């Protein structure tokens, strides 16, 4: 499979990654009905499938959501969650380019408000 082209963040971006996800959706749905596909093969297929850059990953999420493909949506969302897991807020911001728009006072207030979650 050739690498998908970069897209702009418009609603039509979902259409651009559709060919990749559609062909996978067809193959994954056919493997799920085929009795012979072993669990490990499917797992490694899934793992390889989501080894893409972040932009493509989000394109896949949006495409899976728009086309209502549950399996793909679950897989891609879990992949993003795994990138968040076990990282500090600063590390997460770095990975996803999230701008920290809290003032120091605001951040202190958030920490106080949710102190129970950090114990």
């Amino acid at each position: 499979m050739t690498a998908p082209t970069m897209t702009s963040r418009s609603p039509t971006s979902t259409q651009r990654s559709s060919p990749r996800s559609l062909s996978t959706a067809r193959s994954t749905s056919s493997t799920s009905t085929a009795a012979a596909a072993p669990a490990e093969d499917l797992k490694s297929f899934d793992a390889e499938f989501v080894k893409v850059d972040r932009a493509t990953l989000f394109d896949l999420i949006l495409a899976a959501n728009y086309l209502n493909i549950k399996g793909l949506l679950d897989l891609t969302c879990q992949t993003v969650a795994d990138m968040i897991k076990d990282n500090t807020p600063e590390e997460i911001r770095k990975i996803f380019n999230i701008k920290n728009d809290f003032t120091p006072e605001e951040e202190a207030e958030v920490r106080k408000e949710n102190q129970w979650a950090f114990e």
Partner: protein
Amino acid sequence: MDHGSSPTKICKSVVDEDIISNLPEALRDKILCCLPIKEAVGTCLLSRTWRYTWGSMTELMFRRADFASGNDSADDDRRFLKFTDMFLFLHNGPILKFCLNTVANEMVSTGGHLYRWMLMLSRNKIKEIQLQTSIRDSYKVPSSFFSCDELEYVYLRACVFTSLHLPPPSKGFKQLHTLRLEYVTVEGNSLGDLVASCPNLEKLNIRGLCSQSNINIRSTKFKVLKIEGWFTHLNLHAPYLTSVWIGLELNSDTVGASTTRCNFNLSPFIASLSDVETIRFHGHILECVEREFLILKQPKLFNRLTEISLEINLGDLKEANFALCLFQHAPNLRFFKLKLISRNSMVPRVHFWESIDRDVCLFQNVEVVGLFDFTGSFAELGFLKFLLEGAPVLRKLGIIDKGLDRNVLKNLLKLRRASKDAEILILEACFPH
């Protein structure tokens, strides 16, 4: 798509963008629901957009194991309970799914936490509840549970149902389609009443049932039914089942007693099943077979029955007759397994299987058979002979035993087979089935 600008320029602007914060809220919610709940709340520190995203999560999973610090377990319990209380207090929005896993710790029955959480859920349009609590953590089902009108899926453990606080049948769970209970104690006919108040219940799965009263379950919607446990009176009517699994265990007080006194309407129940595909009768349930088991008055066949699993004493006349009736009415049976019991050794040798009319081919479509705890007794060998001679498309016969002597093996080899493709595999019993 604009092919004019160079690819590297587009790449750079895209790579710098914060895509995740601009995803639709439903998708950010979904991503958070894939995280352990503590880390989901931790995203409040990311940016202003993320400050309250955790507060509208729709699917919640609270796992006590995530709070294990390796130190004082009681302190971990306290932190877990406090976290869950505060989370639900500050949560804002509908909660569609609530899962709790405190399997290794007893903590929900004391302190009233579960009652408060259930009350909160009943106000939040909850659709799915899974309380995977410890079986030592027994609790009475909170009355607010019955106010959760939108429930579709329920999984409860170690709880007690009494008739006293059940709602009237008119006010039940109208959307409930699956009910899964483990190690529940049922008083009176509360289980039957609960089922009666759920008009759309299709799947009922009970493990470790404990009941001493009369249970009367009637449903025309049931597709899958599993009841395993200890009960004394069971009356079932569910004619549209596709899969049924009944297992009766012995009360440990009566181990050694010759028969379990259990009233189960086995004949009328089976006679009413028309579209059943899988039948499993385990434990001591076949001891409830009546003396003259007449499965059907008119020649009705279970055309869709493809799989049977029985725990049976082939040397007992009643049970053997029951099995024969079942086989006679299952022309499309493809797979069956028998766990062989030799319960009553006083019963005289039964020439039952030898004396059956061989003209009718009973196992026409049977492909795979498993015989567990095979001892090579007279009755068992008789059945084996009967099976091999009557199964023209048999592919695999697995015999799992604890060691057979040479005579038995010699007799086995002598048996004629109707199917030229039949493989007989003799396997040692080394893992549970």
